[in-house]
C-alpha cells in the first residue's frame, strides 16, 4: 500500500488522474461495500485540474475517502440512513474545505453505521461493510467504511468520526492507524452530530506518519465551531523515533475479564517493546472505568435524541404522504430511521424526560467528572497510557447485531477516552488467527505529540503495520 510520499512521487512521475483512476477501479471491483457514494466524475475532474494547473498543497492530487456523516457540498451525504435520501449538502464541512485547500481529492463517501450508531457498520441502510481481512467478519464501526477502504487499498487516506471509539474500533479491526484527537482540535462544523459533547473527526491511514500529515491538514481553529480550540501545532514534527524516558501508564481496568488472551498478550508485548526502547511502565488505577460504558451511552443517546429531532422530511430528506403534521413527522421518522437509531432515540428521550433526567442524564454527567478525574490522576504518573483498543479482534457479521448490550460492551475500552475528551491513537500491534489486533496510546489533553511519537517509535521498530490483507 502506498504512502503519501510514494503517491506524491508517482503523481509527479505519472499523474493524479492515473492514481485516482486506479483507486476508482479498485473500488468498482471490490466486494467490501466500503463506499455509499463514489464521486467518480468530480474526482477525475479535480485530478485533471491538479495535473494541468499544478497544486502545491501537502495532499495535492491524493485521493481520500470521507465518512458519510461529513458534509460535502454537491456530494450526497446520507449518514447511511434512509432518512437522508436525496440530501445533497449546499456546503462543505470545515475539514472538507481544509482538504480541498491541501489539494486532496474526495473519491467517495464511506459506509458507516447509521448515524454513527454502532460498532460494526452493520446498521447501515446501505448494507454492511466487510472486513478486508476476513469478509465474514465486521470491519468495526461506526467508521467501518473509512477503515476498510484504507485497509483494502481502496483509498490511501480517509476520515472517520469517533464518538465512543468509532475511529479506533475499525482501525483496530482492520489493522490500520486511526486517531481520535483531543475534543476541540478538529472543527466539527459540517460533521452531522450523533453526540456533540463526545465526538471528534479523526484521520485514518496505513502509517502513523500519514495520519500525522492528514491531521496537520484538517486540524486547527474554526470560528464556526464554538468548541474549536485555537492552538498552533505541527504534528508531523512530533514524529521522533525515540521513547527514552517515556513513562507509560498501564490501566489494569482495560485488561478486564472479557479481554481476549491474544489481545492482552499483544498489548503487553507492545509495552515491553517500548520498554526495550527506553520507556518505563507503571500501573495506574482508573477505578471509575466500570461506570464509563453506561455513562457514555446515557449521554450519547440523550444528545442523539435531540440531535436527530431535525430529521422531519420538511427541509431535506425522506418525505412520506402528508397527513396532519404530527402524524407526518412521526411517519417520516418511523420510515426513515433503522432499528438501532430508533432504540437510541427512544432511550435518549426517556433518559432526559421528566422524572428520569436526574437518575440517568445528570448521574451520567457526574460520572463523567469522575472519569475525567481518573485520567487526571493517571497522567500525574504517566506521559501516555497504553491499553487494548478493543477487547477482541473483529467478530462475525450478525454475531451481535440483535443484542444491543453485547454490542455496546465492545466499546468498553474506547468510550472512557471520549468521556474525558483526551486524544487516543489506535495502531496495529499483533494478530490473532489472521485478524489484526489494535492497541491504543492515550494522551493528556492536547498532547497529541506524545501519542504520535510513541506510536511512531513503535511502528518504526515493528512490522505489524506493513502486513496487508490478501487482495488489497
Amino acid at each position: 500500500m502506498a504512502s503519501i510520499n510514494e503517491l506524491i512521487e508517482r503523481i509527479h512521475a505519472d499523474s493524479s488522474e492515473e492514481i485516482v483512476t486506479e483507486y476508482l477501479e479498485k473500488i468498482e471491483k471490490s466486494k467490501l461495500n466500503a463506499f455509499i457514494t463514489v464521486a467518480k466524475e468530480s474526482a477525475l475532474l479535480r485530478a485533471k485540474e491538479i495535473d494541468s494547473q499544478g497544486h502545491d498543497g501537502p495532499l495535492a492530487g491524493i485521493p481520500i475517502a470521507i465518512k458519510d456523516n461529513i458534509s460535502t457540498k454537491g456530494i450526497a451525504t446520507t449518514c447511511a440512513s434512509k432518512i437522508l435520501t436525496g440530501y445533497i449538502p449546499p456546503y462543505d464541512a470545515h475539514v472538507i474545505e481544509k482538504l480541498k485547500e491541501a489539494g486532496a481529492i474526495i473519491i467517495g463517501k464511506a459506509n458507516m453505521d447509521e448515524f454513527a450508531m454502532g460498532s460494526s457498520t452493520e446498521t447501515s441502510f446501505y448494507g454492511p461493510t466487510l472486513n478486508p481481512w476476513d469478509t465474514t467478519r465486521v470491519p468495526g464501526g461506526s467508521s467501518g467504511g473509512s477503515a476498510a477502504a484504507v485497509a483494502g487499498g481502496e483509498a490511501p487516506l480517509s476520515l472517520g468520526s469517533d464518538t465512543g471509539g468509532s475511529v479506533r474500533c475499525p482501525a483496530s479491526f482492520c489493522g490500520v492507524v486511526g486517531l481520535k484527537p483531543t475534543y476541540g482540535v478538529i472543527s466539527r462544523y459540517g460533521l452531522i452530530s450523533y453526540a456533540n459533547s463526545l465526538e471528534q473527526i479523526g484521520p485514518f491511514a496505513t502509517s502513523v506518519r500519514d495520519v500525522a500529515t492528514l491531521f496537520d491538514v484538517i486540524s486547527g481553529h474554526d470560528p464556526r465551531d464554538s468548541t474549536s480550540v485555537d492552538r498552533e501545532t505541527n504534528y508531523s514534527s512530533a514524529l521522533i523515533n525515540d521513547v527514552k524516558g517515556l513513562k507509560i501508564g498501564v490501566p489494569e481496568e482495560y485488561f478486564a475479564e472479557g479481554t481476549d488472551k491474544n489481545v492482552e498478550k499483544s498489548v503487553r508485548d507492545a509495552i515491553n517493546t517500548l520498554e526495550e526502547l527506553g520507556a518505563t511502565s507503571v500501573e495506574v488505577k482508573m477505578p471509575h472505568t466500570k461506570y464509563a460504558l453506561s455513562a457514555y451511552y446515557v449521554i450519547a443517546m440523550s444528545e442523539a435524541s435531540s440531535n436527530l429531532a431535525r430529521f422531519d422530511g420538511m427541509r431535506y430528506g425522506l418525505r412520506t404522504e402528508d397527513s396532519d403534521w404530527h402524524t407526518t413527522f412521526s411517519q417520516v421518522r418511523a420510515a426513515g430511521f433503522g432499528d438501532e437509531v430508533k432504540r437510541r432515540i427512544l432511550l435518549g428521550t426517556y433518559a432526559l424526560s421528566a422524572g428520569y433526567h436526574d437518575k440517568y442524564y445528570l448521574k451520567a454527567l457526574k460520572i463523567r467528572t469522575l472519569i475525567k478525574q481518573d485520567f487526571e490522576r493517571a497522567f500525574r504518573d504517566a506521559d501516555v497510557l497504553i491499553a487494548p483498543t478493543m477487547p477482541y479482534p473483529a467478530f462475525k457479521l450478525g454475531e451481535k447485531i440483535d443484542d444491543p448490550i453485547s454490542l455496546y460492551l465492545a466499546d468498553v475500552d474506547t468510550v472512557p477516552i471520549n468521556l474525558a475528551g483526551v486524544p487516543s491513537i489506535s495502531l496495529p500491534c499483533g494478530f490473532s488467527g489472521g485478524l489484526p489486533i489494535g492497541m491504543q496510546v492515550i494522551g493528556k489533553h492536547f498532547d497529541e505529540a506524545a501519542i504520535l511519537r510513541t506510536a511512531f517509535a513503535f511502528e518504526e521498530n515493528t512490522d505489524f503495520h506493513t502486513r496487508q490483507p490478501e487482495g488489497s
Partner: protein
Amino acid sequence: MYENPDGVMIGLEVHVQLNKLKTKVFCGCSTDYHNDPPNSHVCPVCLGLPGSLPVINRKAVEAAIKIGLALNCKVEEHTQFYRKNYYYPDLPKGFQITQYDFPISSGGYIMIEGEDGEHRVGITRAHMEEDPGRLVHEGTIDKSKYTLIDYNRSGMALIEIVSDPDMRSPKEARRYLDKLRNILEYLDIFDGDLEGALRVDANISIMGGQRAEIKNISSHKGAERALLFEIVRQKNVLRRGGVVVQETRHFDEAREITLSMRSKEEAHDYRYFPEPDLVPLKISGWAPAIKEMLPELPDARRMRFVEQYGIMDDHAKALTSERKVAIFYEEVAKIADPKISAVWICDVLKGELNYRDLTIEAFRKEDMLSVIELLMSKKITEDGAVDIIRTLLDKGGSPEEIVKEKGLLKVEGDIVSTAAEEAIKENPVAVSDFKAGKEKALNSLVGSVMKKTKGRADARAAREILLGKLG
C-alpha cells in the same frame, strides 16, 4: 386602592426581537429580510441543516444585558444555553436554543401607570433565545390544507421577558406592554414597528380558577382584547358552576376570541439540557461597563424634562412615552420656548397624529418650529396654527405656503377695529342686550367681526376691542 373584584392576575411573556442587530443570534445571516422573498436570508445554521453549529453574536449578549439592566434585573456573571426539545414545523432543528437554569438576568421590575396610580410589575426573568421561522396558513390555522414555512425569521435574536403575575386588569397589561416597548426603544436595540418585533403570550387567571395561557398575540391592543375576552369567558365558566382548567388557548385576532388548543400537544416534556455546541458565558464585568453606557430611560427623562424645561409632569410623561417624540420635543425646545413647544406637541400634534394613525416621523421639526414662531410673533391665530398642522399632515407643503394660500395671516388691529365698529352699527339688538347685562350677546358680535375678517382676526383680541368700544 384598586379592589380587583374578580381577583384577576395577569402575567405576560413578551418576545422581543433584537431586529436592530445586523445579524441573527447564532449565524451571520442578515436581519434585513422584511422586504425580501421567503427563505432568502437563511444558511445551514438557521435552516438547521445537518452538521451546522451555532456561534453566539456578541452584540446580542450585550443587548440582553442592556435589557436586563433597564428592567432593574440582576445580571448574572455566569450564563449558558439550553435546548428546549419540542416539535413544530417552524422549528428547524426540532429544538429551540434558549435559556433555562442560569438565565442572563432575573428579578427586576418596571413601574407602570396602574389602575390606582404608579404600579410595580415584577420581572421574573429576561433571557436570550432564538426565533423560529414564520408559518403561513392558507385561510385559518385549523382549516388550511398545508402550511408554508419561511425561515428568514429563524434564528433572529429574541429576548423573552417574563413578568410576575402582577397585572390586575387588561388595561394594566396594555400599559405594561406600552411601557416595555418604550423602554426597549430607548435602548435602541429594537424597532417596534417591524412585523413580528414584539409578540406576547399572556397567562391569566381569576379568583377560583386555574390559569390559561393565551398564545399568538401580536399587538398591545390584541393583548387587551384577548384578556378582556378571557376574563368574561372564565367568569362565565365559573358562573355556570364549571371549572377553569389550565390550558393553552390560541387568540384569533380577527374574531377577537380565544380558542382552546386541546390536543396531544398539551403533553409537553421539553427535556431541557445544556446546549453542547455552545460554551458557557462568563461575563463578570460586562454589566457594570454596559451600565455606564446605558442611555437615559423614560422615567429619568420625564423627571429631567420637568426640571430642565419647567413643563407639567403630564406633558413630560406624554412626551417621553415614545422615544422618538421625546427626541423631537427636545430638538424643538432647544430653539423655541420649551413650555409652548410642550403644549403644541402634546396637546395638538400628538392628537392629530393619533387621529391619522401616523407617527412623529410624519412631521418635520422645522415645520413645528415655524408654526411656533408664527404663533409667538402673533402672525397667526391658534386656530390658524391648528389648521397649518392639519394641512401639513394631510397635504404637505410648508407652513409659509399654507399661510399664504389659506390667507391665515392675522389681520391688523385697525381692520379689526373697523370691523368691530361696523358690527356694533349693524347689530343694535345685540348691543342693547349686552348693555342690559346679557353677556352672551357679545358672542354674536365677536362672530360678526370674525365673519367680516374671514376668520383671520384673533377672537380674543376682537372681544377686547368690542368691549372697549361698548364700554
